[in-house]
């Protein structure tokens, strides 16, 4: 009797939340997959058109460009964020003065709104840098790069500025799990700092490297706030990320069903990327 009441309590603790989760998360996702096989534009009757939306996606230049931009951006940003934050974490973990102040400064971007930070960087690129470049007679930098083919560089910079803080935090936590005597042993053996890093430090923080790569790739493949704040997709459609296209064309362009098909493809790609990343990095992790 008691164990029955027990399991009933456990059921009551989970089932309502699970149902809500299904209703507000899985149901709209399934609905999206369903819509991707129709020609519905948000109003009136609709027809099943099979895989037509998916065939059209293959020939859609805007979407192809959005995927190329999204991937280029995500790869460059993920790599840069990880390099920068690993360097900052190594420096913060070294014997330094003012370590608390430095930490406070480097983690500050983590609590700021990405959209507003992007607006601030927008001004920096569109007004401040061209002004300074003109004063210094540097014609190469005298125009707003957000209006040129280099606009994506601006979006990468703002993403690294903000994204490095969280990854630094993770790497620092990883570095602090390495006991001091490991370094001492390496010192006694006369290994250089470079060798110590690649042979000892990096393998030991490999699990943190894995997490950072997976999380960074996942968030940068879905980049949206930075694009809205910096370029709004421009110039032209040059910096439209896939999330941006799904949002803009799905809501405003009457392409509800079509962009649902795009989102389904996006889902499949993201899952594949995550699986490949985990597969590539697993097994290379070392314990001490």
């Amino acid at each position, binding site marked *: 009797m008691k164990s029955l*009441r027990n399991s009933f*309590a*456990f*059921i009551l*603790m*989970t089932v309502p939340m699970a149902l809500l*989760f299904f209703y*507000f*998360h899985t149901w*709209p*996702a399934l*609905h*999206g*997959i369903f*819509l991707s096989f129709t020609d519905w534009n*948000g109003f009136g009757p609709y027809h099943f058109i099979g895989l037509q939306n998916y065939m059209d996606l293959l020939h859609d230049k805007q979407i192809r460009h959005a995927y190329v931009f999204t991937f280029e951006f995500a790869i460059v940003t993920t790599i840069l964020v990880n390099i920068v934050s690993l360097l*900052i974490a190594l*420096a913060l*973990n*070294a*014997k*330094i003065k*003012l370590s608390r102040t*430095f930490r406070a400064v*480097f*983690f500050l971007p983590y*609590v*700021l*709104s990405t*959209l*507003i930070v992007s*607006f*601030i960087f927008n*001004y920096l690129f569109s*007004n401040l840098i061209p*002004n300074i470049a003109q004063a210094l007679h540097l014609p190469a930098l005298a125009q707003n790069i957000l209006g040129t083919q280099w606009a994506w560089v601006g979006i990468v910079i703002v993403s690294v*500025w903000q994204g490095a803080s*969280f990854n630094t*935090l*993770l790497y*620092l936590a990883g570095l602090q*799990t390495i006991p*001091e005597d490991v370094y001492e042993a390496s010192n006694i053996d006369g290994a250089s*700092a470079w060798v110590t890093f690649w042979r000892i430090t990096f393998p030991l923080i490999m699990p943190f490297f894995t997490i950072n790569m997976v999380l960074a790739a996942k968030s940068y493949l*879905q980049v*949206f706030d930075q694009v*809205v704040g910096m370029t709004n997709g421009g110039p032209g459609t040059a910096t439209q990320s896939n*999330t941006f296209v*799904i*949002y803009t064309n*799905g*809501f405003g362009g009457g392409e*509800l069903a079509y962009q*649902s098909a795009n*989102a*389904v493809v*996006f*889902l499949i790609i*993201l*899952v594949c990327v995550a699986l490949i990343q985990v597969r590539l990095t697993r097994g290379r992790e070392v314990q001490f």
Partner: protein
Amino acid sequence: MFGRTKTNWVAMIFLSIGSLCILFPIYMAIMVSLKNPQELAQSVLGFPTQIHWGNFQQAMAVTHYFHTFLNSLFITFFAVVLTVLTHSMVAYAIARNMQKRFFRYLYNYFFAAMFVPFPILMLPLVRQMSHLGLADRVGLIILYIIYGISQNVFLYVGYLKSVPLELEEAALVDGANRWRIFWSVVFPLMAPMNATVAILTGLWAWNDFLLPLVMLSNPNQYTLPLVQYAFQSQYSTNYSLAFASYLLALLPMVIVYIFCQKWIVNNVTKGAIK
């Protein structure tokens, strides 16, 4: 790579340059916000000859600052409180029943949902929510609670593995039921993870842009980031006004960060290394 015996000046110089890179845009934002357009045209980075606090007053009036701030606070507060209360409970039931198939499947279901990108549910979701009459602040709170489950249940279940069973069993022998055990024994024991989940949820709900953008149809209910987006055209080229407004929007979280920096960093780290 960086030496470990005496003060490492290479690391110090690197960190100083890095700190300047972090602080420079914030410095620029403050300088822009304190000038009038004429002075801004002369110099962006210099100190203003006369400080124009009026920009902040005007920005507050334009964006209905206190109202918008209360919207953000309302949404964030209820998202955080309800998330901590419900997710800890769900995770407790799952963690203590992992040997049962139902709970194991439920755990895997929540975990798998972490890989589903938001764009795939975004379009149908907005229609669903407006049909329910929930395209508002309340609906937004519900969605933050729902979409946080994957990550938070994962964190809580990981943490509960290290919470000993003895106390629960003792309470069970004393005749307490599961609900009592959870609220008076387990929930307090999970305090460190509650803090982590609260901070992660709070930062997310407070700074989020995409969900409020698609969900909130009534400008009266806009959050602080969303209102900056909505008012872009009103600022037009009055950058000082825009920057005063940006800084006002960032200010509450910066103040929280200044006072709770160590606590926030420690708890986020704890969540991250689970």
